[in-house]
């Protein structure tokens, strides 16, 4: 429907008088990735200002953890970013291992890398699917992603006992060794995944609706991204190839060869494509990690750590590249078995800071798109 046939406006009226309205995109909303509230000031359909209101899922996990021992906090880290529980566990045990000076045997490191990259595949498949759900492609791309996720969740269930709240990593290694039947299934998943990514790209990447809705929407220039402390695929889509796996070389990432996909413009389309390319790189890392696991002689999967860990007095900041960005744990120990200060540096929380800047000037329908492209989990934002 073009403007000439819509409404006949007499030539004397130049502009319609409009008043700004405040729209509340309330905490219960199917597209806000959790309980997230935004107060949006609109001029017509164009966004003038946006104020995010958080705290609907605040459980004060930082205070809870001060009453638990270090080991008892591991199930709570599962519930921070509930989609990627393995990487949450890994970041926490990395911080405690830095604090207490615990070494990790090589077999356990290989298993950790495999679990981390499987989590990255899980998260990106879901993120891309839900980005398209937000766009209106009601659940078809989600179901393609969920089909692949089911295979990986079966792997997690075999290894750790639970699909989502894995509670798998321990200080100095992992909780249990991989069961029989894990490796053949893992090889099958890794062999079939590139075909799935190609199929996903075939029906999404050049789709006209996606191109017209995603291109040049929600642009975040690289210097603003660095200033706001944004990390993860959002930062890399803006053109800055900062990846904690390459910088810190924690676990076995120093020995693994992989590339870092970056975007040029920093819009929603770049973030979507960066996630697709990161899935391909994760498959590449998985192939190398499987080979490293097979070459490692069978051995311990956890170094000897006292049941009730009492780290020396001090502090540590351990960070990893979780699928959403840089996930860090800052721990202060006073020598007892409970932490003095337990802090989560959540990537979704910091990535959400430039939301207003990205949304200003766009239409209301673009808000859910931009929010979906940042890929947040409210449990991590609110902790």
């Amino acid at each position, binding site marked *: 429907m073009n403007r000439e046939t819509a409404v006949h406006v007499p030539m004397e009226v130049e502009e319609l008088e409009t008043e700004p309205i405040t729209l509340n995109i309330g905490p219960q909303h199917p597209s806000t990735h959790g309980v997230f509230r935004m107060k949006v000031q609109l001029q017509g359909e164009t966004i003038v200002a946006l104020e995010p209101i958080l705290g609907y899922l605040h459980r*004060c996990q930082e205070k809870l953890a001060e009453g638990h021992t270090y080991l008892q906090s591991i199930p709570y880290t599962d519930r921070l970013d509930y989609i990627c529980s393995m990487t949450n566990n890994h970041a926490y045990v990395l911080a405690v291992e830095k604090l207490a000076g615990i070494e990790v045997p090589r077999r356990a490191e290989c298993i950790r890398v495999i679990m981390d990259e499987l989590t990255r595949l899980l998260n990106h498949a879901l993120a891309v699917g839900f980005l398209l759900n937000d766009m209106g492609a009601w659940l078809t791309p989600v179901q393609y992603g969920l089909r692949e996720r089911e295979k990986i969740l079966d792997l997690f269930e075999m290894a750790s006992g639970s699909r989502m709240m894995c509670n798998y990593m321990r200080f100095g290694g992992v909780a249990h060794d991989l069961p029989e039947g894990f490796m053949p299934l893992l090889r099958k998943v890794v062999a079939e995944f590139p075909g799935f990514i190609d199929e996903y790209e075939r029906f999404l990447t050049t789709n006209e609706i996606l191109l017209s809705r995603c291109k040049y929407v929600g642009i975040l220039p690289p210097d603003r991204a660095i200033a706001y402390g944004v990390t993860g695929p959002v930062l890399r889509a803006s053109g*800055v190839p900062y990846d904690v796996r390459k910088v810190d070389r924690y676990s076995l990432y120093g020995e693994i060869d992989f590339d870092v996909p970056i975007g040029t413009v920093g819009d929603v389309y770049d973030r979507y494509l960066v996630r697709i390319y990161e899935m391909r790189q994760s498959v590449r890392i998985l192939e190398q990690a499987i080979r490293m696991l097979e070459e490692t002689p069978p051995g311990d999967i956890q170094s000897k750590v006292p049941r009730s860990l009492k780290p020396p007095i001090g502090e540590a900041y351990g960070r990893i590249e979780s699928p959403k960005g840089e996930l860090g744990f800052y721990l202060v120990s006073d020598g007892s078995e409970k932490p003095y200060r337990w802090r989560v*540096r959540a990537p979704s929380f*910091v990535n959400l800071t430039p939301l207003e800047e990205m949304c200003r000037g766009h239409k209301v329908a673009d808000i859910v798109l931009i929010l979906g492209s940042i890929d947040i989990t409210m449990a991590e934002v609110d902790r």
Partner: protein
Amino acid sequence: MTDAEWIALRDRMARALPAGAFEEGPADGVIHVQPRSLLYVGRYLLETEGFDYLSNVTGVDWLAEGEFEVVYHLYAMRRGARIARGEDPGGPLGPLVLKVRVPRERPVVPSVTSLWPSALWQEREVYDLMGIRFEGHPDLRRIYLWDEYEDHPLRKDYAPKED
């Protein structure tokens, strides 16, 4: 940071900043700063040393010593980005830990949002849960708890009220 990088950084800072602006902590990579020189040291670190990525702002409540401590973790992102391109970073990558201590009776710290906007929401969170005020923050109000709430839960002397 390697030991050599830390020693070189420390010497550069000692030459460039006035005496007494900062003190080295007991561990490598830790700098203690007085609240009044926080912005000065921060601007030097951002503009001259290239620590452009503020990763984490945390508050710690040292009840026994009667002080609050605000801890900042700084990294160099533009230098770190060179690693993925296969180039040499050419300088320390971090982490550089900045610590500021203020007395518990008057917990006021200058805000670093003018230098690193990533502190916008993280400082609001520290204010909400610990009660440390950040001077110069454009929008200092509670972020998680509702505005009429009066106490600060992460403090060590917090006692939940029975409703």
